[in-house]
């Protein structure tokens, strides 16, 4: 099995445990051994976006230094770091690009880090989806059929923007659609697949997020989707956990199941539904469509 550096990020260890569980299951079934960095720190979250705030770049760069150290110690097959949360992906990748491209920033960061080992700039930051982008849909052996299940893919912002950090064509991505098809479901998308969910505004301007989520989810429902998938724990919260607030604000809103994209693949590959704390809505739909009545546990 290929040993690859894995960065979970805080949310996957707390609020989004199922995202990690289903992703690790999927990766293992598809031939990857994810080696979690032994001492990872915060990805840097979105703070590193301001241009004069280099201190916040120490966090992402140190994570990359640790990948470098792990490769040197032969714990990894290559200097690659895979991550799942789209916010972590965005921060790590952008800090990496900035470090590689700016000699001035590079030297400042090295100076601040002082006695720590210097980052050589050779780690590639990959999103989980990128690992599987060249897999042919027929080549994966699936345990469960998702045929007929219509899945609305939701990218959000941080997988695609800014352009230089995008994991696919920023304007017309297909990577999530391909992933869904690889695992036997039908992928649907609309321009709302790439509309911002409101992100952190959920804390201080919930009504804006409710409005955006309503638009996105309504677009999904109107496209005929049975479920929505996402790669971001914050989008997941904004699209799934506040649906009761959307119902209150927009009485015509009917609701739709939301899941992490890895839940879909883990289910198709045979993960025991008992592993889920709360059975995702798409499973019920998938069962109804394939005529199966009950999942064998």
């Amino acid at each position, binding site marked *: 099995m290929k040993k690859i550096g894995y960065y979970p990020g*805080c949310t996957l260890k707390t609020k989004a445990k199922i995202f990690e569980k289903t992703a690790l299951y999927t990766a293992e079934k598809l031939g990857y051994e994810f080696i979690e960095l032994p*001492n990872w720190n915060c990805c840097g979250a979105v703070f590193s976006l301001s241009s004069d705030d280099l201190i916040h770049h*120490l966090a992402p760069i140190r994570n990359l230094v640790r990948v470098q150290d792990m490769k040197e110690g032969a714990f990894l097959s290559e200097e690659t770091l895979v991550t799942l949360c789209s916010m972590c992906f965005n921060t790590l990748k952008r800090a990496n690009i900035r470090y590689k491209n700016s000699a001035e920033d590079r030297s400042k960061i090295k100076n601040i880090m002082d006695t720590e080992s210097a980052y050589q700039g050779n780690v590639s930051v990959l999103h989980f989806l990128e690992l599987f982008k060249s897999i042919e849909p027929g080549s994966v052996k699936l345990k469960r059929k998702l045929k007929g299940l219509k899945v609305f893919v939701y990218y959000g912002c941080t997988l695609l923007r800014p352009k230089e950090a995008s994991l696919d064509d920023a304007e017309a991505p297909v990577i999530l659609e391909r992933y869904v098809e690889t695992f036997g479901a039908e992928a649907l998308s609309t321009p709302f697949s790439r509309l911002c969910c409101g992100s952190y505004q959920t804390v201080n301007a919930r009504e804006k997020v409710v409005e955006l989520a309503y638009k996105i989810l309504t677009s999904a429902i109107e496209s005929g989707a049975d479920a929505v998938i996402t790669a971001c724990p914050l989008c997941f919260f904004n699209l799934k956990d506040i649906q009761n607030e959307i119902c209150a604000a927009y009485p015509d809103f009917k609701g739709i199941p939301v899941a992490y994209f890895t839940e879909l693949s883990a289910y198709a590959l045979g993960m025991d539904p008992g592993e889920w704390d709360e059975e995702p809505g798409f499973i019920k739909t998938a069962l109804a469509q394939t005529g199966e009545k009950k999942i064998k546990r």
Partner: protein
Amino acid sequence: MSKKDIMGEIAKANSSVIKGVDKSEIKHWANIYIMGQRYEVPADLTIMQAMEYAGFRFIHSCGCRAGFCGACSTIYRLKGDYRLKTAMACQTRVEEGMFLVQLPFSPAVKPRWNIEKTGYEDGAFLAYFPEIARCVSCNTCTKACPQDLQVMDYIQAALRGDFKKVSELSFDCIQCGMCAVRCPAEIVHYHVAQFGREMYGRYGYPRNAVLDKRVSDIKKGVYDKEFKDLVKKNKDELVKIYKDQLANKDKFIKGG
């Protein structure tokens, strides 16, 4: 080396304590600065010994003299170096050109917690120490730690509620407070760590079945009769019991 020679060596090494320092015997000297005042001291002394040599008497900031208690926090800088360094005065040898400051204690805030009333949950650290969310991973705490602990790493583990990792990484903390003094985010690392260890010890660390059984036996009174008999014995009888036990050590150990 014979016993007599060893005793001679020890006496020689400690002669300065008994007879005072014979300056003609000291080959290497170092200039150190205590609160800005220069002192010439024997170069093989620790900071603490050197300060005593210079005439200071510790009535505070001095505890075990063995690197365990964390009382003798010292901040220093070397001539020609811009870095502020940290050390335990009892564990660090003086160097030429050391500018020394003793830190009596670190006045860091310590929240009151009750582990019995705190849930063993991801958010427990943040509830008592919301300032850990300000960590920017600058690693200054790690560089300040005289115990060479991965301080920043355990704060990062605390952020995600990893009690086990916090406990393991902070186990050798002596609570000197250097991390808290240096932190730009005003985090009180050593209290975070203590909270983490208490919580992990109470809820996370696997219970020891042997210990549980013994405690429950004691509570049930399994050993009460033996204890009562024992306190009635006179000294000779106790010595005999002790010697018998020593002779049959293996039997007692195997018997659990």
